[in-house]
């Protein structure tokens, strides 16, 4: 797992510098220590702002999804580490157009504490905040402890749907509700074939033996459901669909994401997609806007995740509304 880098401690700052140099029409670097990415243009007054934040190393998540129809600003931590409270507060300031700010991020302890504390700070400045925490990874806790689940690729659906709702002019309660409904509608599960290297650590985060895989593993290498010999693609896809469909019924209009964790190429995502499609159609669902690619990654980790998103009329309209950023255009 070799990496292209200079000083490991400069990895995130150099990445952000390059990102903003490449796409000044989308991204503007601001905030404490430059660790906030905001939209190139200031937020339209009266629009609800949407902020996210979390560790680096997941591009396009989180930073990449700043743009029209998506996020307004994002606080960026070191690789796999939470941003600081100050950075989150700065992100909320950048996303404030006077109509309130939705905090939309994944269910990780550090992020929650920091976003809460940052909220306490900016509320003193009369910025109204709401919160929706994503917890879509069904492998990380049983359904009776669903609130303990980690947030993974389902986040992207929530960004998209909340972003469209905000762009459509809904108020903070309305955007928060749209985001919460998107969060409730998503279920994800992933598997890993091999690890990635956190630059500052300098060695792979975990080890999976050659010829093995881990089903249900988290995007930072958190333990999954089982570890065992690498299965055939169709067997892996069937098992993932079993896990997802056992957790929640999906029917009618459903969107699906087959997401590479980084190294796994799109060729292999398409091989998985054959089974995902067959299973969803057998369950009576019609697939809307399948997303196949790298939407939420862990640098050069090998593996993939599947996310299902149960749509209703509103969610579908917002999912299919236009959006624009350097990584995704609808």
């Amino acid at each position, binding site marked *: 797992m070799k990496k292209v880098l200079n000083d490991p401690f400069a990895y995130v700052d150099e990445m952000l510098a390059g990102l903003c140099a490449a796409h000044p029409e989308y991204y503007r670097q601001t905030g*404490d220590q430059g660790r906030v990415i905001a939209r190139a243009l200031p937020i339209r007054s009266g629009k609800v702002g949407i902020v996210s934040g979390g560790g680096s190393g997941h591009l396009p998540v989180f930073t990449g999804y700043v743009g029209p129809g998506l996020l307004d600003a994002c606080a960026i*931590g*070191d690789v*796999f*580490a*939470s*941003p*600081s*409270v*100050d*950075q989150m507060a700065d992100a909320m300031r950048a996303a404030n157009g006077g109509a309130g700010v939705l905090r939309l991020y994944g269910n990780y*302890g*550090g992020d*929650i*504490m*920091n976003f*809460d*504390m940052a909220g306490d700070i900016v509320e003193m400045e009369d910025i109204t905040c709401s919160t929706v925490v994503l917890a879509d990874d069904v492998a*990380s806790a049983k359904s009776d402890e669903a609130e303990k689940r980690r947030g993974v690729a389902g986040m992207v659906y929530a960004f998209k749907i909340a972003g469209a709702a905000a762009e459509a002019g809904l108020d903070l309660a309305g955007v928060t509700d749209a985001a919460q409904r998107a969060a409730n509608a998503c279920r994800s599960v992933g598997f890993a074939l091999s690890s990635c290297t*956190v630059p500052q*650590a300098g060695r792979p985060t975990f080890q999976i033996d050659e010829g093995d895989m881990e089903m249900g593993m*988290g995007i*930072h290498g*958190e*333990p999954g459901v089982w570890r065992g010999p690498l299965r055939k693609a169709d067997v892996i896809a069937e098992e993932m669909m079993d896990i997802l469909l056992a957790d929640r019924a999906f029917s009618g209009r459903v969107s699906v994401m087959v997401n590479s964790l980084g190294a796994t190429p799109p060729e292999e995502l398409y091989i998985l997609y054959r089974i995902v499609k067959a299973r969803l159609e057998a369950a009576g669902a019609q697939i809307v806007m399948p997303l196949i690619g790298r939407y939420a990654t862990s640098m050069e980790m090998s593996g993939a995740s599947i996310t299902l998103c149960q749509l209703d009329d509103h969610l579908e309209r917002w999912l299919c509304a236009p959006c624009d950023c350097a990584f995704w255009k609808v």
Partner: protein
Amino acid sequence: MLTRDSLAAGLARLANHMDSVADELNALDGQLGDGDLGITMVRGGRAVRDLLSDLPVDLGQALLQVAQAFTRTSGSSFGTLTATGLMAAAKALKGREAADWSETSALLMAAFEVMRMRGKADLGDKTVLDTLHAAATATEGLTDAAEIRTAALTAVIGTMDRMRGKHARIGRARIFGEKSVGLDDPGMRAFLHMLRGIAPP
């Protein structure tokens, strides 16, 4: 008596002590999590050291600045929790230029309460909260600085011994379940070092 000057002296010792235990804390955190706890404390300590020459005499203002040194330098859980606790103490001491050592227990308990709320953890979850609560309880009614120090350290070490065999139930360590049994919680160890650092032996 806690004043701007005794606080500054204590914080200077704390920052130095953190430099010397950073590797130990990183290693312990690395067994169960992301191995950054030592970094968090060193960075926080450094930022605190930068404040000392210019610390406000108002203890509330002073502690607020110390809290912000932690929110600014780290996004890791322990840094944020430390800042949360310091802010509770800052609130309690706002507008005052001196405090009696006998207030220590109440200040620790105030910190404990807000940190429990912030982290949504509880006693027995094998976190810094258990040691903090133990220190607050053990120092209740004490007035002498040296006595307070001994009581707090004894309570913290006792709590760590008692909790070592338990499962971690919160934070990164939780997901490593079994592996946490037999290991000290990194946050408890950090708190122990904060006590050792701040109070002169």
